[in-house]
C-alpha cells in the first residue's frame, strides 16, 4: 500500500518529534553533566546517549559504572528498568503499517522511548515507517546534543540550575498525560490507579527494595488491566477512528 519512503510523512514525524527533542535537551544535559563529572570522557557520555537512548536506564547504569559495579549488576539493573519497553513495543505493533518489513521494524524499535511512544500512541491512524523515522530523528539529535553540551560544560554551571533541571523529564510526562486525562474519565482513573499502586509499592515496607523498573511494570499491568476491564474500548473496524472515540 505504502511506498518505501514518503517525504511528507517523514516531515510530519519531524514536526511531532521536535517538542520531544527540545524537551530532551535539559534532561540529557543533566546526564552529560553527571557522566562527565563522574570521570567519563565527553565522547563516551555521548556514546551512551546514542546507543541507549533512554532516561532512567542509562542514568542508573552509568551511576553503577561510575561506582565500579560489576557487569552483571549493571546489565540486570538496566534490563529491569527497561522491561517496560516491551509493553510499549507490543502496544505500538498493533498500530504499525502492516506492510512494514522486519528490517524497518528493527530500526524503529531502537527509537521507542517513553515520550516517542506516547506521542506515537496519540497519533491517529496507521503508523508508517516514514512517519516513525521522522518522529525519532529529532529526539535522537536532541538527546545526544544535550549530553554533549552537558558533558562539555560540566564544571562551569551554577549548581542550583542543574538541580532545577531534574524536574524537566517529569514535567514533560505531565504535559503528555494531562490533556487526554482531562477529556477522558477512564484515562484519568487509570492514571490515578497506577500512581496509587506505585506509591503503595514505594512506601509499604513489604515491597522494600523493589526496583523502580519493576514498580512501573506492576503498576502498569494492574492499572491498565483494571482499566481495560472497566472501560473496554468499543470495537472499530477502522483503525483511524479508534483513537478519537474515547477521547
Amino acid at each position, binding site marked *: 500500500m505504502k511506498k518505501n519512503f514518503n517525504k511528507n510523512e517523514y516531515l510530519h514525524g519531524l514536526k511531532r518529534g521536535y517538542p520531544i527533542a527540545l524537551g530532551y535537551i535539559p534532561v540529557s544535559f543533566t546526564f552529560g553533566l553527571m557522566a562527565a563529572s563522574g570521570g567519563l570522557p565527553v565522547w563516551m557520555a555521548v556514546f551512551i546517549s546514542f546507543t541507549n537512548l533512554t532516561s532512567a536506564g542509562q542514568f542508573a547504569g552509568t551511576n553503577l559504572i561510575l561506582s565500579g559495579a560489576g557487569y552483571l549488576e549493571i546489565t540486570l539493573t538496566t534490563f529491569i528498568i527497561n522491561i517496560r519497553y516491551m509493553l510499549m*513495543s507490543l502496544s505500538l505493533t498493533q498500530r504499525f503499517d502492516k506492510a512494514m518489513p522486519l528490517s524497518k521494524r528493527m530500526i524503529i524499535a531502537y527509537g521507542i522511548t517513553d515520550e516517542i511512544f506516547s506521542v506515537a500512541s496519540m497519533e491517529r491512524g496507521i503508523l508508517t515507517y516514514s512517519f516513525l523515522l521522522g518522529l525519532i530523528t529529532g529526539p535522537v539529535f536532541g538527546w545526544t546534543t544535550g549530553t554533549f553540551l552537558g558533558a562539555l560544560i560540566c564544571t562551569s554551571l551554577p549548581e542550583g540550575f542543574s538541580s532545577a533541571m531534574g524536574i524537566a523529564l517529569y514535567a514533560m510526562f505531565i504535559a503528555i498525560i494531562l490533556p487526554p486525562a482531562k477529556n477522558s474519565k477512564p484515562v484519568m482513573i*487509570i492514571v490515578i490507579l497506577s500512581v496509587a499502586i506505585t506509591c503503595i509499592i514505594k512506601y509499604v515496607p513489604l515491597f522494600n527494595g523493589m526496583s523502580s523498573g519493576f514498580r512501573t511494570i506492576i503498576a502498569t499491568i494492574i492499572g491498565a488491566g483494571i482499566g481495560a476491564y472497566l472501560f473496554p474500548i468499543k470495537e472499530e473496524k477502522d483503525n483511524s477512528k479508534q483513537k478519537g472515540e474515547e477521547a
Partner: protein
Amino acid sequence: MKLERAFLAIILMALVTYIPRVLPIAIFQKEIKSSYIKSFLHYVPFAVLGSLTFPDIFTSTGNLVSAICGTLMALWLSFREKSLVVVAIGAILTVYITEIILIIF
C-alpha cells in the same frame, strides 16, 4: 575505573535496552483480536507515564518545596494544554526561582 570496562558495560546496557524494544516488534506482527488486550494496550501509555511521574517528581529537585512548586506549575500549564517545551521550561524556572527564594529567606 578503566575505560575498556566502562565501554563493555555500555555495550551491554545498549543491548538490554534494545532487546525489550525489539522483541515484541519482531515477534508480534499479527493483529491482536481480543478486545480486552486491545483496550489494555491502549491504556498502557497512561499507566506507564503516571507511574513514572508520581511520586518520583517530588524528589527530582534540590528539595521538596521547590519540587511541589514545579509540579504545580507543570500541572497548571499542562491543564491549559501548553506544549511539552513550555511545560518543561516553566517547571524548571519555577524550581530554580523557588530554590533561590528559599536560600534568601
